[in-house]
């Protein structure tokens, strides 16, 4: 195993250690009280956000400014137990939106609905029919939606799959197409789930604090092939496509 691979594995082990030591040792109740965000992600996203929205009271007192928790919601004394847990900031607005029953007219609206269906499937689990409901037009995109939940594969598996087209998957360039072609790099292609391909492409095109406010290609322009490859592989790993 190379030093880079060893460091990568070490970092993932460190992540696991953090979760186990700081979060997973807590009971669900403790976790809900200490880190409602993590509790919501792991256990009860929908229930928590729906209950919080129902329980939201715009007149509920906040901790006065100047305190460490200044501005946070505080108990109004009207109820006890879990009902007193409040989400900070503005009222919760993240109830899963209903998926449009009719096929949207624009490509962007269709994309949003397909991605929202994939997000909900990832959050709440299957079967897919429960997520899609009456939005029957989404069955046309069932392969894309379900493929987005694929577990990560090895680089060899992703490269090998390139020669076998499959519904719900697209060919992805690890390093952007133009520089790869210029450098004659042949092992630059992988087959990955369509929605992951689109998420990674979107990440590449958006401005990012990580690169001094530049979009990744602007930051990477003129940099070495190794550096561009590293960012390309890291993006696959962090988007859950490639095993670390």
């Amino acid at each position, binding site marked *: 195993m190379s030093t880079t691979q060893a460091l990568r594995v070490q*970092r993932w082990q460190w*992540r696991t250690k*953090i*979760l186990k030591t*700081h*979060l997973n040792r807590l009971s669900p109740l403790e976790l809900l009280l200490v*880190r*409602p*965000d*993590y509790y*919501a*992600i*792991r256990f009860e*996203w929908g229930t*928590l*956000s729906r209950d*919080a929205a129902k329980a939201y009271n715009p007149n509920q007192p906040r901790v006065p400014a100047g305190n460490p928790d200044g*501005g*946070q919601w505080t108990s109004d004394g009207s109820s006890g137990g879990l009902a007193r847990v409040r*989400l*900070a*900031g*503005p009222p*919760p*607005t*993240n109830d899963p939106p209903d998926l449009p029953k009719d096929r949207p007219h624009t490509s*962007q*609206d269709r*994309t*949003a609905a397909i*991605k*929202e269906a994939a*997000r909900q499937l*990832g*959050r709440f689990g299957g079967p897919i029919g429960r997520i899609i409901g009456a939005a029957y037009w989404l069955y046309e995109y069932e392969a894309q939606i379900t493929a*987005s939940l694929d577990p990560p594969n090895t680089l060899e598996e992703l490269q090998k799959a390139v020669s076998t087209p499959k519904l719900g998957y697209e060919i992805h360039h690890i390093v952007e197409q133009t520089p790869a072609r210029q450098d004659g790099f042949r092992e630059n292609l992988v087959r990955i789930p369509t929605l*992951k391909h*689109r*998420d*990674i492409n*979107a*990440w590449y*095109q*958006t*401005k*990012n*604090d*990580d*690169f001094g*406010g530049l*979009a990744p290609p602007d*930051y990477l322009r003129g940099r070495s092939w190794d550096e561009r490859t590293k960012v390309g592989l*890291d*993006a696959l*790993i*962090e*988007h*859950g496509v490639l095993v670390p």
Partner: protein
Amino acid sequence: VKRVNVREMTVDQLVDHFTILALDQDKALLREDIARVNQLYDQLKLVEMELKSRGDDERKALLKLYQHPNPQVRVKALKATLAVAPIAAREMLEVIADSREYPQAGEAGMSIRALERGIFKPT
């Protein structure tokens, strides 16, 4: 589009405005409207810089957004507060990176890598 002047906002209003911009960015990401995502990035930076210029760096007011239900709001608040709460923000980035809630999990994971490699130096 209604124009807002961040200089005239209170800290609480800036936090609320930051939240609204991040929620809009989440919608734009779902629609793959990249021009809008980048436009909102610039607006989020304006809010962040305004908070930084207030008092003893009021970016810490964004800490309350660590518990917001929307992952895009959380990831933007985390990255905006890495300079004022480096340990808490870093730990929460790890949580989002492990959440498998994409694309925010991807952005959080890439930020951790940029931090580790010294490319991203929050100030």
